[in-house]
């Protein structure tokens, strides 16, 4: 969608887990969409609306982040759900990955 450089800033990984309640032990995963300049802005907006059930305004906000900043964090969730979202986004040929939150 843009010629902006897609700087790959990856979250730190391998952080020691603390012994707290279950929710703090469960690592959070970020679903990230990266910019591929070939994708139409309208198409990316549609896919975000379809996969996440977002309204047009929210979908456009994230689409523009991808377009202008090279990537957008679309969700912070469990590993299982992150996998699901990445699968869905990739079915639409979007460049999506899941990364462990630092």
């Amino acid at each position, binding site marked *: *969608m*843009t*010629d902006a450089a897609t700087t*790959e800033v*990856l*979250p730190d*990984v*391998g952080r020691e887990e603390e012994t707290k309640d279950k929710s703090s032990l469960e*690592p959070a995963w970020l679903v990230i969409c990266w910019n*591929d*300049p*070939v*994708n*139409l*802005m*309208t*198409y990316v*907006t*549609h896919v975000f609306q*379809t996969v996440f059930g977002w309204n*047009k305004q929210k979908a*456009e906000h994230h689409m*523009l982040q991808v*377009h*202008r900043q090279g990537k957008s964090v679309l969700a912070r969730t469990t*590993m299982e759900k992150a*996998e699901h979202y*990445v*699968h869905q986004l*990739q*079915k*639409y*040929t979007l460049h999506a*990955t*899941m*990364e*462990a939150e630092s």
Partner: protein
Amino acid sequence: MNARRSGKDHHIFHLGPREKDLLFQTIKLYPLVPASHYQLSKSKNAAQSDENQRLLDESLAEQRQQNRKQVLELLNDPQRLRETKSGFELKLAPTQMEWLLQVLNDVRVGSWLSLGEPEPGKEPELTEQNARFLLAMELCGAFESMLLAALGIRESPGWMNG
């Protein structure tokens, strides 16, 4: 190709004879993105097992098979396209719109990869072998735009600012 009318359960598009041929020639290229293109993660985290990647590969392979089946049905079933005086009418249910968008974007991205991933506004280095991909990429973009317009999604002037 333009939207004739849209109902709750379907959208009807009009295609001229040449447009129909171009659409069919384009979707025949599906799938074009190599399976190895898809990665679950950019990082090499221990939690990212090969098993997860294998599941992603399987899921996408199954999806491609289903989409390929739909493409063949569209290409081979004359009932899907109704001939009119000026061309053809294509009737698509919402789920069919989704698979057609997926198919078109696969061919668009696959063509872009085959052209060496040119940046917007930059001409790819064309050869006898890859020239057809430039046409396919542009055609897919045009067909996608028409499908998305029928869904009420159009580019906003504000998107180009900033």
